[in-house]
């Protein structure tokens, strides 16, 4: 599915933001969430996005996740101008190229872990047999083999987030967008989750964009982008700490 995209011309970055602004409201009540962001992210990167509340990092994340569109400026995803896509085209882009992990897990209640993980495959039109098989493998990959029939209510927070990660990677997306994935978890659980994300980044080449407050978690990334007042304040490339190293 994503094979041709990965072999794309190296000159075209996976993600490119050019002078992106986002304004909510208008006139005197206008709120400038982003004031001109330039950002380039290549395939296979693991980027942590940090910054205080109201710095625009969540807005930027929504735009990167194609859930929102810039007020001005350009967002190119694999060279495609997302700003020109309509709502349904953006939905298709999310369906085929993106995976989401949220702070609050956002699993369907009273629905088994397996069915939750199958959900994106359902929208891709996969047959029941293919859905079961791939969802089972994805759950096994996040260490939840044998938990397929449990509903979110029967799982711990860490397990729920693993189910959410399985749901995000079951389609083998280009990019996994994680919005404070460890915000609701204790430290030990948080490091487990980061270990999983690192693993998917390294072993499957999935590009990971992660918003986080916690410097500990940002340590796992190869690159840390800091937002202040709707602008990129710093962009630091570094050698990440490994999950193995911590454990």
């Amino acid at each position, binding site marked *: 599915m994503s094979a041709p995209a990965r072999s794309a011309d190296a000159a075209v970055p996976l993600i490119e933001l050019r002078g992106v602004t986002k304004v909510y409201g208008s006139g005197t009540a206008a709120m400038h969430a982003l004031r001109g962001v330039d950002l380039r992210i290549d395939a296979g990167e693991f980027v942590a996005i940090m910054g205080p509340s109201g710095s625009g990092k969540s807005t930027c994340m*929504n735009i990167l996740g194609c859930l929102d569109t810039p007020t001005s400026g350009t967002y190119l995803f694999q060279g495609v101008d997302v700003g020109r896509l309509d709502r349904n085209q953006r939905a298709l882009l999310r369906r085929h190229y993106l995976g989401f992990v949220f702070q609050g897990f956002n699993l*369907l209640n009273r629905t088994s872990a397996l069915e939750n993980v199958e959900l994106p495959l*359902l929208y891709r039109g996969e047959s029941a047999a293919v859905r079961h098989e791939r969802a089972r493998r994805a759950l096994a990959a996040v260490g939840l083999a044998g938990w397929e029939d449990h509903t979110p209510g029967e799982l711990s927070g860490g397990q729920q987030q693993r189910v959410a990660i399985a749901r995000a990677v079951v389609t083998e997306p280009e990019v996994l967008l994680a919005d404070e994935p460890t915000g609701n978890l204790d430290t030990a659980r948080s490091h487990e989750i980061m270990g999983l994300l690192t693993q998917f980044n390294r072993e499957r080449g999935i590009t990971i964009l992660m918003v986080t407050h916690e410097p500990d978690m940002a340590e796992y990334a190869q690159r840390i982008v800091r937002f202040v007042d709707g602008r990129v304040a710093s962009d630091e490339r570094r050698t990440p700490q490994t999950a193995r190293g911590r454990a």
Partner: protein
Amino acid sequence: MPLMLWNALLLALRSIRRNAMRSFLTTLGVIIGVAAVIIMVTLGSGATAQVTQQISSLGSNLLMIVPGQPGPGRSLNVAPFRLQDVQALEREIGSLQAVAPVASSTLTAVYGNRSWSTLVAGSTNEYFIVGNWTLASGRTFTESELRAGAAVCVIGATVRRELYGTQDPLGTRVRLRNFACEVIGLLQPKGQAGFGRDQDDTIVTPLRTFQRRIAGNQDIRSIQVSVRDAALIDKAQREIEQLLRERRRVAPNEQNDFSIIDTRQIAQALSGTTQVLTLLLSAVAAVSLVVGGIGIMNIMLVSVTERTREIGIRLAIGALEREVLLQFLVEAVVLSSFGGIVGIALALASSAVLAQMLQVPFVLNLSIIALAFLFSAAVGVVFGYFPALKAARLDPIEALRHE
């Protein structure tokens, strides 16, 4: 696309199962609406069929001629018919199969220690032809009995039951006012007529017997004729009118002083009334279907609000607007069609019972059942569309933030 529909159906069934109680209460409105419409139409067609059947049991192609015009008090001093009128009809109008002069009166009949008030009619053997009567046992009148006005009679099934029980009435004598007449025949029962009169509650004597021994005059209160062919009824009616106007010396500018009643018209009028009533009641029932639809809309709106976060997740994952729309629309349609199916089952069961209780034939109207089902599904589409659209148009970011 079929896969998409199948998925939507799967999701809808899952969601309905999760809220089984609420789903049932929601569909109750549609269940009641569909059941009410079908019950009304079924009983209504039953009643119409019954009326038609009863009217035709009076006699086929039957015209009744009575002196005077319909309306209060107007027939009191109008001259009755004479035997000569009957003979003229027989002689001059070729399209008539049978002409029966009738004089009748309500009398008490006595046999042994039992008595029974019944309609005694004096007529000829033509009376049995005109009224489609057949004999269960015994015989009709002989020529000499008719001419002589013999004390003989043919009795109906109700009179037999009331006076004789299970005893054989043939050959016995039943007393009418001041004379006793021999029972020579027993009529085959016909059952209840329209307008609630029991046709079997009757005794028939020769016309002359009635005129001499009961009425004491030569009056004929009505003439019943049967027309050879249904197509000739209108023509026969015009000819009878013309003939009787002449015989009764009605001036050209005057109204008829008699009426010709076509039983088909009574049948049409009566079944027309039943149909209007059925239509009215069905319309009331249809309103409850619409109310049921509003119930579904209400619960779908609640469901959309309640599941805002779920919708947000679906949209974020890449569900298209039309997929979310379809999911909720299918859910509404499944709910309402389920209500339709249960309503149909309920209606069939209760109209079978009600038809039995009201003694109306159970007429199964398949097209109204199909229509009620389609209508219930349509209710789901119409009232499910707005909530489904509301769900599909949600902003995924807002929806995900929803608590």
